[in-house]
């Protein structure tokens, strides 16, 4: 009898508080499930066997850690809410004669039951849904998954241990809270008088300043390489700024409104503004969390979705033709030889090299100061991190090759050049190469087919079309004198498309590269030849972007779950707080409609502030995102806009839905008294 007393008490306590317990348990289940699924995908052999599966698993294993850390923080946070609600009940038990030790036993059983439910439910759902996750992953990778159903026991073990530890730590924390408080305090912990919040102008202004700096950084960023670093700085600033603004800024703002008597003492504003002060004080941190989580979801989903959707175009940018033979030479005989080998392979397969792209170029990385190309960076005195802004990639290409590719008949005087700018804009009329002549830029070329290297380096790139090959030779000499062993090579770039199946393309690629290797083996002096086959690289591409997209969605789900739970608890706690106020207002002469209107507008403000702020954050993150996606080779601005707006709308829809459901609960609570 005594043995089952505590478990029974714990179970009935949980049941009676199901309104606040159930969402918590559901979230626990969700977290366990996501942890299992991600863990499952990282170790599953079926996934590993897929083309590009290993890349994907690497990406996902990173996500597994994120989920674990996040689950810890988040469950800890929500449980503190739960404990606050339960304190009254525990205080009553305490007064009725249960010692603290007895309370701990009840609490132990509660967390034990909670943990069991969370683990069983979460693992159950996880195991069931892991197959679906595997299938959708196969779909992302463009593969067909086996019908074999697998359970990863190792992952189950890891998940159980991880969450047992989390629940254990949470229990210890609750025990600590109960232990340090007196029974009477427990009874009244909810009704403790609340000090009117004071406006902290310093923190409010600091919040504005931090956000301002972060926005400024995000908007003014130019170079993709620095973008990555700045992005992390900006993220930290935005998080800090958002918290300060929601917690201190909102209170300060309401106080400001209260000072304006003409505005404040009006029927519409009076109740709303004064209640908002308290509401924001209570909810500032929670709302800021919702806002940050929402922004994370949006940034993650929109950038990864963008990469995933744009992957085919991206691939084409990186590999302008199905097959590329890049010979590192100025000597045409070597280049011809290599190209002939490739064409022979094509011929043997009964195919035709279509859409041929052939040009020679010299590529050098250099430092650009105004119209001055500086080769020797050591000479620069003031080269700092900022200097990366001025590092550019220069490609020199003979005009004849340009004319041939683009089907033009341009002519140039000596010392005149054409120019095509990628990822940058060249504003000067002349370009001066250190130790060489100054050339006049006659015209900007409207378009050119980039080579894969330029795309891969993501640097601002200038394609300079010079009158003849002799000039390239001249520049080559100059730069090899400066750079010595690190000097760049002249390239003979030869690419073509094939009209056949992907498998055959891969086969052609393989044969070509082995023949080229044989060439190099036969002739010591044969230059380095790079052969690239887009089809063979496709899987890696898909796996990388698919993996990130997939991870984006999985983490997005986790964050959304968290956001929902915060919204839910906020609504419930608001409801209980407002319950008594609702009654008083009615007695002092507000109509139900007026109260409802006022409460409605407050609740709307409170819950849509994070969504709107998240939208603004996303908007300002846009330029920096664009730069970062450039690092991954994505250049399509419109696509990012569409995807970002699309994800925002979908997210907003979802948010409104959650709000609608939870606000019904809220009204249920505040009107409960009257019945």
């Amino acid at each position, binding site marked *: 009898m005594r043995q089952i007393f505590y478990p029974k008490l714990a179970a009935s306590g949980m049941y009676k508080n199901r309104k606040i317990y159930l969402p918590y348990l559901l979230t626990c289940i969700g977290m366990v499930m996501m942890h299992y699924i991600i863990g499952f995908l990282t170790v599953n052999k079926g996934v590993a066997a897929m083309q590009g599966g290993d890349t994907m698993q690497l990406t996902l294993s990173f996500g597994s850690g994120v989920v674990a850390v996040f689950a810890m923080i988040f469950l800890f946070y929500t449980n503190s809410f739960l404990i606050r609600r339960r304190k009254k009940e525990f205080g009553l038990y305490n007064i009725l004669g249960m010692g603290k030790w007895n309370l701990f036993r009840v609490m132990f059983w509660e967390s034990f039951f909670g943990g069991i439910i969370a683990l069983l439910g979460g693992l159950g759902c996880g195991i069931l849904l892991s197959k679906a996750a595997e299938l959708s992953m196969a779909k992302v990778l463009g593969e067909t998954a086996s019908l074999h159903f697998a359970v990863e026991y190792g992952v189950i073990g890891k998940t159980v241990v991880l969450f047992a530890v989390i629940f254990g730590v949470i229990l210890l924390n609750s025990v600590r809270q109960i232990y340090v408080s007196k029974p009477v305090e427990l009874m009244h912990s909810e009704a403790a008088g609340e000090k009117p919040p004071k406006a902290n102008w310093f923190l409010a202004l600091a919040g504005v300043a931090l956000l301002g700096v972060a926005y400024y950084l995000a908007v003014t960023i130019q170079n993709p390489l620095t973008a990555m670093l700045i992005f992390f700085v900006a993220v930290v600033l935005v998080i800090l700024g958002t918290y300060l603004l929601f917690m201190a800024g909102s209170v300060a703002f309401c106080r400001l409104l209260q000072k304006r008597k003409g505005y404040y003492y009006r029927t519409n504003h009076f109740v709303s503004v004064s209640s908002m002060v308290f509401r924001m004080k209570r909810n500032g941190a929670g709302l800021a969390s919702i806002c940050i989580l929402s922004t994370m979801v949006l940034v993650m989903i929109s950038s990864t979705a963008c990469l995933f959707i744009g992957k085919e175009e991206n691939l084409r940018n990186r590999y302008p033709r199905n097959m590329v033979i890049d010979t590192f030479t100025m000597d045409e005989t070597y280049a011809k030889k290599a190209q002939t080998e490739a064409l022979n392979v094509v011929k043997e397969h009964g195919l035709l090299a279509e859409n041929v792209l052939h040009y020679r170029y010299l590529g050098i990385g250099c430092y650009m100061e105004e119209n001055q190309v500086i080769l020797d960076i050591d000479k620069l005195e003031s080269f700092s991190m900022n200097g990366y802004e001025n590092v550019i990639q220069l490609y020199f290409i003979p005009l004849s090759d340009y004319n041939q590719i683009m089907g033009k008949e341009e002519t140039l005087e000596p010392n005149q050049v054409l120019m095509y700018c990628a990822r940058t804009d060249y504003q000067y009329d002349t370009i001066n190469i250190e130790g060489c002549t100054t050339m006049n830029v006659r015209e900007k070329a409207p378009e050119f087919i980039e080579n894969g290297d330029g795309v891969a380096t993501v640097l601002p790139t200038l394609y300079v079309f010079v009158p003849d090959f002799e000039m390239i030779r001249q520049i080559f000499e100059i730069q090899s004198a400066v750079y010595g062993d690190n000097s760049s090579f002249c390239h003979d770039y030869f690419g073509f498309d094939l009209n056949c199946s992907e498998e055959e393309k891969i086969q052609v690629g393989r044969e070509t590269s082995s023949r080229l290797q044989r060439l190099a083996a036969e002739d010591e002096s044969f230059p380095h030849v790079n052969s690239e086959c887009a089809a063979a690289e496709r899987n890696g591409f898909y796996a990388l972007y698919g993996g990130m997209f997939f991870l984006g969605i999985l983490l997005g789900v986790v964050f959304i779950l968290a956001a929902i739970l915060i919204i839910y608890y906020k609504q419930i706690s608001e409801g209980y707080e407002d319950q008594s106020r609702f009654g008083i207002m009615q*007695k002092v002469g507000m109509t139900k409609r*007026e109260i409802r209107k006022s409460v409605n507008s407050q609740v709307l403000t409170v819950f849509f502030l994070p969504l709107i702020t998240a939208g603004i954050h996303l908007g300002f993150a846009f330029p920096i995102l664009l730069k970062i996606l450039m690092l991954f080779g994505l250049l399509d601005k419109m696509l990012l806009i569409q995807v970002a707006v699309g994800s925002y709308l979908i997210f907003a829809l979802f948010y409104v839905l959650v709000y609608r459901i939870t606000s019904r609960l809220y009204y249920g609570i505040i009107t409960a008294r009257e019945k």
Partner: protein
Amino acid sequence: MSILEVNNLKKIYTTRFGGNQVMALKNVTFTVEKGEYVAIMGESGSGKSTLLNILAALDKPTAGTVMLEGKDIAKIKESTLAQFRRDNLGFVFQDFHLLDTFSLEDNIYLPMVLAKNTYPKMRERLAPIAKKLGISDLMKKYPYEVSGGQKQRAAVARALIMEPKLILADEPTGALDSKATDSLLSLFSSLNEEGQTILMVTHSVKAASHAGRVLFIKDGEVFHQLYRGNSSNQELYQKISDTLTLLSTGGDVQ
């Protein structure tokens, strides 16, 4: 002229399940004259709160009428009811019912703001009331920062600021210590002397002994009433005690 007429008031609650009927008020009839100070006494469950809720138009009677200055409050439209309450009735509650999100000043302004008064006008009205109640220095404080007695004074100020025809007080001394009780009761007396009509529902013999007339409610009916006449507070106190003793021992009152 009577300011409030209550005629044959009846209220029956039906429990939500099963249709059990509970008679809260059986048949209540009384009137309150302008400038009167009336206390209504009765034990828990005698129907006092129900009566007050109906008088405040927060609840509707099953039968009977409540006329405030000759106007049937049951016939007032739901949409204008709040305004009616604001303009005609001032409330003082046992647990003050001050909003903790407002300073005392703003709590007192609340009905005026709802009635769309301008800020200068509100200030003008508040100053003399706050002075009379001795809370002028507390205006910027929040409810949690002041004592129970001070909170109740602020609540009285809130009731007075709209210059209501009738003040309805529900156990106004219930949560106060004896000193605060004394001072609140003398405040009520002086307000009454200035012509304010007050209707107070109370348990406390002491509170009731300050009234001009005491009504006793038992089992949903007005069972008895006492007039002050020329009695002092002390004498009235004694009469009320005797009546209550009779009521609880089940005897009849002549």
